[in-house]
């Protein structure tokens, strides 16, 4: 059974903000299906009683003093921006126009 359909990949690509062509969707659906098939075994290994590990060496309460440290200047922060205006990042329209 196919775990990941072409429609699934199209939806995931939309969530991940990657525009994909039809041919790419087809190819990726096949590849991902094979990969998911190979890694699905993890769901059968660990029982309910096994706790999850999110971090190999957990540290707790890592805070610094609440003081202003070194930061980038506005100029430095905007240096690599694809587009900027009046000291701000500039982007195209945020809302769709009808």
């Amino acid at each position, binding site marked *: 059974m196919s775990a*990941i359909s072409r429609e699934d990949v199209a939806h995931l690509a939309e*969530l991940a903000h990657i525009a994909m062509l039809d041919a790419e969707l087809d190819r990726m659906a096949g590849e991902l299906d094979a990969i*998911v098939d190979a890694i699905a075994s*993890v*769901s059968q*290994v660990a029982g309910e009683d096994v706790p*999850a*590990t999110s971090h*190999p060496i957990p540290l707790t309460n890592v805070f610094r003093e609440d003081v202003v440290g070194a930061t980038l200047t506005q100029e430095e922060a905007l240096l690599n921006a694809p587009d900027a205006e009046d000291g701000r990042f500039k982007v195209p329209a945020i809302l769709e126009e009808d």
Partner: protein
Amino acid sequence: MTDIITLSASALAEKLRAGELTSVEAVQAHLDRIAAVDDAEHGVHAFLHVNAEEALAVAAEVDAIRAAGGAEAAALHPLAGVPIAVKDLIVTKGQPTTAGSRMLEGWMSPYDATVIEKIRAAKLPILGKTNLDEFAQGSSTEHSAFGNTRNPWDLTRIPGGSGGGSAAAVAAFEAPLALGTDTGGSIRQPGAVTGTVGAKPTYGAVSRYGAIAMASSLDQIGPVARTVLDSALLQELIGGHDPRDSTSLPETVPALADAARQGAAGDLSGVRVGVIKELQGEGYEAGVQARFDESLELLKARGAQIVEVSCPHFQYALAAYYLIMPSEMSSNLAKFDGVRYGNRVLPTDGNVTIERVMGATRAAGFGDEVKRRIILGTYALSAGYYDAYYGSAQKVRTLIQRDFAAAFERADVLISPTAPTVAFELGAKLDDPLAMYLNDVATIPANLAGVPGISVPGGLSDGLPVGIQFLAPAREDARMYRAAAALEAALEEEWGHPLLADAQDLEQAVAAAKEGAK
């Protein structure tokens, strides 16, 4: 080939201190070597950017301080003046950082990584930035947007990955030292297939601040070198607590170089070396297995006690890794959207809204492997699948940690082949992502558990290097360096020289490749 470039970092440092060589001479010798063998079309192509001017300036500064003598000269770091190459995933001011991706082509970091600050403070001239699979995702450097690196042992073969550039640079004598990053084996597997040394420190032992994040709970910066001692010296330099990395361990750096020197002195009496049953045999090439078995005999001859340990959940490590890593990286790479930095691409038709700009930017900026993993990670994290995939993988991680804990009850260090095969032909596994992923089967468990690992040259199979991996408990990097140095010394005593002395005449091979292409 000049003698300068074949010196180990520690030997070169010694000559600089003794005044037998200047740092400018050392840097220039390496720049000449890069010019001779690193051609992008036909050569090693380890470097994406060569930083000649700055490297020579830093070298001249070190030479001037030495010549002046006095307190400032005495205070120089032992590795001052020894040149180093840096994986292009680590950000550097004044030089481009691309992560091997079109997305960051032309990007200039406004800050230095913590490890770079330390290297600058110690005055190691930075030779340049080395090639890698895009955003460190791959095992061959074939996923670099700027063309693959070639293995100095055979220019038609992969140098490993993702840090193939750093490993190839030291193997090709283009640099005595390099920095790498290791998320699933990206320092150790390239070390194995290029006949060099690569170490992944304990998770948190070296600051990750300024390493472009792939999978934050797995990533680790570490040393790439030709000898175990050089690797230890470099880890001592870059290690230590960093308040800018909330996962950085609070402890001070242990005496790693001393541990390496102790190991090289030869005696392993009382050291229990655990052979991981699950990381050998089926799936491992006969030549790899043979070199591994010989290494065990040598360790035994040096007094080590060989015990077999079983880590039954390691068979699920690859699967868990290919859920955790893409999940974390799909989230980490969300920031590359063409808004604040990186390249922006406009959609070719329809409305130009920010959402469509992001889609077009990421479609054009990312290569196939990165896209594949982002989609896989997005899938593993999506509603309805999270528990079955990401949640289960995190539980497997716990089981793997328990396997390690049980194994380290019975052994002081663990040992396995670093990679199941020697370097394969370029292109051989490009169309089969799963086959490519299997390269990391022996290196991934260390990342999942956060324990340190090192690969040392174990000999040749069909004329190509085989790597031997040592693993130690978390925070016991010194133990790993001691055992690795002992094996290195034993093997070199057998061979009568370092393994890289057996490598082909590279300048001739590159010239032949250029000639053949005409």
